[in-house]
């Protein structure tokens, strides 16, 4: 492992994506990636008594599914890395309780998936760990309850709003060789351009995505054209348009290889305004669409930039603006 440029890491040992699993709710299952998801729920309560319990059951299903996809057992996991949006990351903590594997809880809001991949890849590159399970997710109903209004309250969503994805994903990283590898990662800084509109997360997070993506291109001396797929996590339609503007202003024009998981996950008829958001957005898309594209050799590399808004309802009520972060990993397939 070595540092290149200002904020980028290059993994020198082989860090492989061995297994993956994605699980989503019924609404996401009717979206654009339905054919890619491993499991689509019929009922977003998942047979549980509360949405919080359903969220952790999704996490557990994702981890067990990912292990099964590469024929590993729970006891093969050296460390679990997970986080979520709930206070005190309860969904991840309760999942780790069930799995009884060593666990590091992490929090990066909606950037958690990529943050866990960066930590996991570093642990494997350090030659200490063999298999690391990285998981995260979100649930529309738990996020609404914690951050917004009761589900049945008759309010209107503003046109800039996004829809929290009900979904979870798990990636198994390993030192054992496979077709897809994590080559590089850029650790983001907390960026705050003084946006405080909680209904415009894309606008708040776009500068964080800009700083991380720009630093990655500068550090690696590459351009957007060197990559088959550049995906941001959950900027949504508006946020990704803003990112295009900001990147162009800094001298990097994003082409048709750029997309946003939040914008892509739902289709136009699903009334979600700017698109999806939440930890589950990038987690479910990465562990389905992206990994399958790479496996099928339809893309030889993919840059994933997961963005997270790091405020709480308390900080917002006290008038603070929204601090944001973006974490980046570069995935590559072996000899295409």
């Amino acid at each position: 492992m070595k540092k290149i440029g200002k904020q980028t890491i290059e993994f020198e040992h082989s860090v492989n994506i061995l297994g993956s699993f994605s699980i989503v709710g019924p609404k996401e299952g009717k979206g654009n990636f339905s054919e890619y998801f491993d499991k689509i729920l019929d009922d977003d309560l998942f047979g549980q008594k509360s949405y919080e319990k359903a969220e952790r059951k999704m996490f557990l299903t994702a981890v067990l599914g990912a292990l099964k996809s590469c024929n590993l057992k729970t006891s093969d996991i050296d460390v679990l890395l997970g986080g979520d949006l709930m206070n005190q990351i309860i969904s991840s903590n309760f999942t780790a309780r069930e799995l009884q594997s060593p666990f590091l809880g992490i929090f990066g809001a909606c950037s958690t998936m990529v943050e866990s991949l960066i930590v996991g890849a570093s642990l494997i590159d350090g030659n200490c760990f063999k298999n690391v399970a990285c998981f995260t997710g979100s649930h529309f109903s738990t996020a609404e309850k914690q951050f917004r209004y009761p589900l049945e309250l008759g309010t209107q969503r503003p046109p800039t709003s996004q829809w929290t994805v009900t979904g979870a994903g798990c990636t198994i990283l390993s030192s054992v060789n496979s077709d897809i590898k994590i080559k590089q990662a850029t650790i983001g800084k907390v960026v705050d351009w003084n946006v405080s509109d909680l209904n415009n997360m894309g606008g708040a997070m776009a500068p964080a995505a800009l700083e991380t993506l720009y630093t990655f291109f500068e550090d690696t001396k590459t351009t957007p054209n060197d990559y088959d797929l550049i995906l941001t996590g959950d900027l949504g339609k508006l946020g990704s348009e803003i990112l295009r503007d900001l990147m162009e202003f800094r001298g990097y024009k994003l082409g048709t290889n750029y997309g946003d998981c939040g914008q892509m996950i739902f289709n136009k008829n699903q009334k979600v305004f700017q698109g999806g958001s939440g930890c589950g957005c990038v987690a479910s898309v990465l562990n389905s669409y992206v990994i399958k594209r790479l496996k099928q050799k339809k893309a030889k590399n993919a840059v994933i930039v997961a963005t997270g808004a790091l405020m709480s309802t308390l900080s917002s009520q006290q008038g603070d603006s929204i601090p944001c972060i973006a974490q980046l990993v570069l995935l590559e397939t072996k000899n295409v």
Partner: protein
Amino acid sequence: MNIKERDKKYNDYLEAKIPKTKPWPTLFHAFWIGGLICLIGEIFKDLFLLIPNMTEENAGIFESVSIIVLASILTGFGLYDKIGAYAGAGSIVPISGFSNSITSPAIEFKREGLIFGLCAKMFIIAGPVIVSGLVASIVVGLIYFVF
């Protein structure tokens, strides 16, 4: 460019960039649904007036109670949020909106228990309205008392 200038420039850019709510369709939705709720209220009132010895004042009270109960039932069946998403203020301003604002957190937080969940959280939306109402009535009461 210093940080303050950058933030201001970015927020100005955002302001110009964000999609705005279209006022005319929104107003129309609010107008006809709001009007419909009031019409239903008037129908209830006229029906109550058919009851022998019913006064105008009592019929009005029964009307409000009926709308409150109806909105609460619609909330329970998961329909009022759909009406609200379409009508906006049209379904928030009438008393049915107040009913919805109390029933919806009651449903949401019933899993946290009867006392600390349902009862404690029931007024998280309607609470400020009740507080303002109480404060206003105290002020009016004092004015009435003094003059």
